[in-house]
């Protein structure tokens, strides 16, 4: 028993060490500046809770929080059902299913930044490929401003869904394969149709996997900003600014802003607040979804 425990400690040590050094330490490094004014040079000046008062009245930050919820909700509402349906279809003895699984999974391994550049070419309104097709097919009379103020959020959600569906499909597939075949066989003997099968057998039996996948999807969506940074830089005028992009810019001003003055003190306070928001949402989700975790 002792030997087994030793093995467990030895094997968990590398990841524990890396988490501590690369995950926990930087968080504390940044968090200590929450109570300081610090532009990245000079002596940090203690300002007490001023940074948090500023977070409370920072309309731009709260707008970015609101945008984040719209973005995350849009992404989840589309991604989860789509990836579940794909998983169910590709879990059947379908010819070419391995190839299809690989194709759907491909977006997951592409760099979000590179794909955002490709999507910029597809969606931009002045010579984007999408508009050219829509106009050729007579579906649009003039170019649609996909990345303009009115549509930008929808466009970044579509791109996020494209990037995420394959990943969650794979997780669902793993879950589906743990459902014993005899349950389905018994159901088919009882004359259950495919929709009933999905609703009354597959989804309930996927409960714990579903709970975990949705939890992952929520946290990833709330924290996502990379593709938005490349595609719109949070624009037009803040319409797609999500909270982690807002935070990123405080620590690393974008080259296009023409300044390299960091805002580490205020950024740390914003970072703490965003972490609190993500943590709170996750906890609420766990409480609401506790029934899903009941195994059948």
């Amino acid at each position, binding site marked *: 028993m002792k030997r087994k425990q030793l093995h467990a400690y030895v094997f968990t040590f590398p990841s524990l060490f890396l988490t501590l050094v690369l995950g926990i330490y930087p968080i504390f490094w940044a968090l200590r500046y929450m109570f300081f*004014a610090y*532009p*990245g*040079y*000079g002596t940090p*000046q203690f300002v007490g809770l001023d940074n948090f008062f*500023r977070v409370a*009245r*920072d*309309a*731009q930050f709260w707008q970015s929080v609101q945008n984040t919820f719209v973005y995350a909700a849009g992404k989840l509402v589309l991604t989860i059902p789509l990836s579940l349906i794909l998983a169910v279809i590709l879990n059947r003895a379908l010819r070419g299913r391995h190839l299809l699984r690989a194709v759907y999974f491909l977006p997951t*391994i592409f760099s979000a930044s590179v794909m955002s550049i490709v999507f*910029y070419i597809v969606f*931009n*309104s*002045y*010579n*984007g490929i999408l508009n050219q097709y829509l106009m050729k097919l007579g579906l649009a009379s*003039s*170019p649609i*401003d996909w*990345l*303009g*103020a009115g549509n*930008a959020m929808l466009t970044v959600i579509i791109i996020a869904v494209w990037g995420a569906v394959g990943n969650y499909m794979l997780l669902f597939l793993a879950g589906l394969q743990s459902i014993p075949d005899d349950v389905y066989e018994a159901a088919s003997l009882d004359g259950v149709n495919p929709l009933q099968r999905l609703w009354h057998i597959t989804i309930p039996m996927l409960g714990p996997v579903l709970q975990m996948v949705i939890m992952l999807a929520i946290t990833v969506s709330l924290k996502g900003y990379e593709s938005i940074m490349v595609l*719109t*830089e949070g*624009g*037009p*005028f*803040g319409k797609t600014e999500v909270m982690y992009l807002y935070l990123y810019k405080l620590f*690393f*001003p*974008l*080259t*296009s*802003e*023409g*300044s*390299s*003055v*960091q*805002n580490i003190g*205020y950024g740390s306070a914003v970072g703490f607040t965003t972490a609190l928001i993500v943590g709170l949402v996750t906890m609420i989700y766990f409480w609401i979804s506790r029934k899903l975790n009941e195994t059948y």
Partner: protein
Amino acid sequence: MAKKQWLKTGTVALLALALTACSSGGNNGNAGGQNESGSGGTNAAAEGKTKIAYWTMDRHDMDFMQDKVDAFNAENEDNIEVEMTVLADNYNQAVEVAYASNQAPDILRIFDFVTYVKKGYLAELDGFMDDEFRGKFESVLAENVNMIDGKLYSLPNTGQYWRLIYNKDLFEQAGLSGPPQTLDEMVEYAKKITEAGKAEGAYGFASNFKNNSGFTRPAYAVGTLSSDTSHEGYNIQSGQYDTGMYKDVVQAMRQMKEDGSMLPGAETLDIDPLRAQFAQGKIGMYVNHSSEPAVYANQFPTEVDWAAAVVPTASGEPAGVTWVNAGAYLGINAHSDKQEAAYKFMEYLYGEELRVDYQEAGYGISVLPYVNEAAGAPEIAGIEGFLPTAYDGLYPATPLSITETKLEGLKMSDAFTRYIMTGGEDLDALIADLDTRYNKALEAARAEGLTNIEANPDFSAAALQSSLASAQ
């Protein structure tokens, strides 16, 4: 079984590919890291060379500069080998990360002079240079531009001269004979160009509104030429913000948007896609700087007949000078242990022959008297419109960057861009709100000692007229 084998091989190949991609990134880091090692790494030691890394964000002159770097590597007698790296849009983030991880290059193009010095990134240059060399630059040295507290950290080189760039073919097609002198004319011309060219997808005006510079490029140029006191929304005389200096140009851009004279999608346009559209004859006018001739000669070759002119103002009469972006070109890494070698390379880049070649090839227009005296007219198409006029000048530094870290609410560039794109706000109220917030932020920055820029009652932009070139 064979299928499984194939899958396994595929997976391993994929992993290998991913690892290669990661390690190539690592190599880039090592290039910088090696410079920190002091001995110059094993390769360098074996060859007895001092290897230094040089980072730049300039793309328009990269071939020319690479040739000059190669020539330096081949000819210098100090056994110095320079590796030049051109970083594009994320230059600033790359530099920040490189310094944070102790992998910064030995010599680098400066992006934000004051902040780089305050962060301790740059080495003082005074100790390296002799009086004769320094004497060549005396007339273009200024506090917060290339000096801090009287110590020199960088030297100027070329200046960005800002102009209205226009497509002469589209102007002709719309029955227009020359560039607009006033903002009203610019609005009217944009409308006429759109009416004449819309069927072929050509529009009157564009700017790269994907980020702040969509506003700042036209606004800073028009704003400075229209004002005797202010730049970057800051009144240099009074030491307070006065963003009302942009009211006229913002209204003009809003009008062009309302008229439908602006290229569709300008909201998300970056500068290179804008240039690509201009090169295809889809844009009548935009405002940018003197890199454009090289851009249209190398990066986006074009058949379009284009020219550059002094930007318009509300009255058509200049009150100040169009700002010239110059002052700090290169800096030497304060943490490098090869500063001597880096300085020798820097001195080489300031050699008269090299700078004259650079200017004559049209890659940039110098602000250095010794270059301008020796260089002949640049040979590149379109450069004529960018040559210094009596209405170009170097402004003193403003406290904008540091003010914006203390600013609560929208930045002026975002607030004005939103107004240009959507309207529906009271522009005077917007300006009053900006002034209040910016002045409050400036007060906080001053109270914390983050800036030493104060009111300068003697400043006059009109007095800068004819400082870089005499009136014709």
